[in-house]
């Protein structure tokens, strides 16, 4: 485990590890997340994830990314090749992550600001607020927790662990909400009791980022169901 300060660049391989971690974690959870979308949405989220990951793989194979930005570009371009609402929103979110730094790996502080920028972008395009039962319900607390932890002087991996916890917390809280945005809003109270799959996916992404920075430890997925 590497200990880094907010202003020190994260490890050289953080881009690669982050992207690989996101792909592995989301790939493993795709069926479960698709089921959630089936129960309170239109059921295509699992397919959308798989399509995105296949495109990311293609991009990696074609472009042989080396730098952090190249790795994240392979990720965000893959997601932009996907339909539904999650494709463009995750795509633009990852694009902001890609822009965290120039070619070098970002610092923890830059990563936090990039996550905040990503949240703002998702909200600019998706117009969702906290409480609408969307990915914002996981993203907003994660960004807040990360910034707070870094301001408190906690080291990068530790701060990301706090962000992950907040994201999981936020995602789990969506089970208590009736959706107001996205396809899930069409099913009304039937979405009660079902975790928003996009929010859960965000929590896994933050978990994958934590793992990449911390140098290991796949995100827990047992809470999703």
């Amino acid at each position, binding site marked *: 485990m590497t200990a880094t300060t907010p202003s020190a660049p994260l490890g050289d391989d953080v881009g690669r590890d982050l992207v690989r971690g996101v792909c592995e974690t989301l790939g493993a959870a795709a069926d479960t997340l698709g089921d959630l979308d089936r129960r309170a949405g239109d059921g295509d989220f699992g397919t959308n994830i798989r399509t995105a990951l296949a495109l990311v793989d293609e991009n990696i194979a074609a472009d042989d990314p080396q730098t952090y930005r190249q790795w994240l570009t392979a990720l965000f371009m893959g997601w*932009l090749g996907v339909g539904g609402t999650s494709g463009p929103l995750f795509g633009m979110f990852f694009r902001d992550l890609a822009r965290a730094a120039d070619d070098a790996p970002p610092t923890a502080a830059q990563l936090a600001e990039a996550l905040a920028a990503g949240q703002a972008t998702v909200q600019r395009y998706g117009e969702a607020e906290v409480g609408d039962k969307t990915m914002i319900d996981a993203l907003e607390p994660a960004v807040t927790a990360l910034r707070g932890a870094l301001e408190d002087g906690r080291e990068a991996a530790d701060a990301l662990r706090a962000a992950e916890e907040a994201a999981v917390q936020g995602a789990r809280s969506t089970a208590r909400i009736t959706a107001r945005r996205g396809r899930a809003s069409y099913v009304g109270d039937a979405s009660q009791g079902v975790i928003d799959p996009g929010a859960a996916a965000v929590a896994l992404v933050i978990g994958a980022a934590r793992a990449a920075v911390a140098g290991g430890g796949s995100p827990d997925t047992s809470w999703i169901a």
Partner: protein
Amino acid sequence: MRRSIVNDPGDLVPEALEGLVLSHPRLLALQETHRLVTRRERARDKVGLVSGGGSGHEPLHAGFVGRGMLDVAVSGAVFASPTALQVLEGTKAADAGRGVVQIVKNYTGDVLNFRIAGEISGDDAIETEIVLVDDDLATDTGDERGPGRRGTAATVVVEKVCGAAAEEGADLQQVAAVGRRVASAARTMSLALEAGTHPGDSAPQFTLGEDEVELGVGIHGERAARRVPFRDADALTDLLLDPLLAELGLARGDQVLAIVNGLGSAYPLELQLVARRLHHRLADAGIAIDRSLVGSYVTSLDMHGVSLTLVPLDDELRRLWDAPVRTPALTW
């Protein structure tokens, strides 16, 4: 029971695009990966024009690629927006160095993906302008914060006049401006006697009683806000025309471009009856139908219905409308 001439429904869009391009080898080319239909000879030194959206509305959009109209059409699956990546590649393909106008029908998914593609194409130093088409009067709720009116058949007019302006050498802002002028002035009303059927499905998207007409129907098989009693061709036409006239506030001596548009399986005799009534009514009102199109241009699979679009005309729009065009679906 409905059936379709289709292979694997999942392959429908790429196969159909291939068929279209093979049928117009001198006019069109296909970029398979992103389902782009482009001009065979890319235009040079003009503002580029890209449009697109879900499939199932043919000949829109790929049928309007060619000289004097679109440079590139981007196709999503049936009734589903193309992805941001497709639109991005379409926007790049349309660029000839003078920026690209993106013509977008106002649906959440399309707007999202075109806006994103526009933003990202900035990474390649391509300037873009979006022209949003939102002519569907049936969805005019007056609610500022709602999704706004849907985009339907006025898209053809926007694509035509923007295409002509670009061909004339207008710059990015000018091309976008004339498109927006049409979009803000045009209004459309639609009705259906029968919904369309998804390729491979055996039942239409919704069913109507013998005495029912879906008034204000959309082009994705969305149900309309109103069902009204069935009536004859003249009275059906009036159902479309009355709200259009009320909304547009046209006056004696005004000139309009009219589109009598079949929504899929309306046949020419039916459209000609609607056109006739339209001409009679506007002649009575002293409004000149200076230009018109009668045919199936913006469809909803095999929906049996018709839409009526009116666009107030001025000299500039008439000139741009009359400018030469050569595309699979519109040529003069």
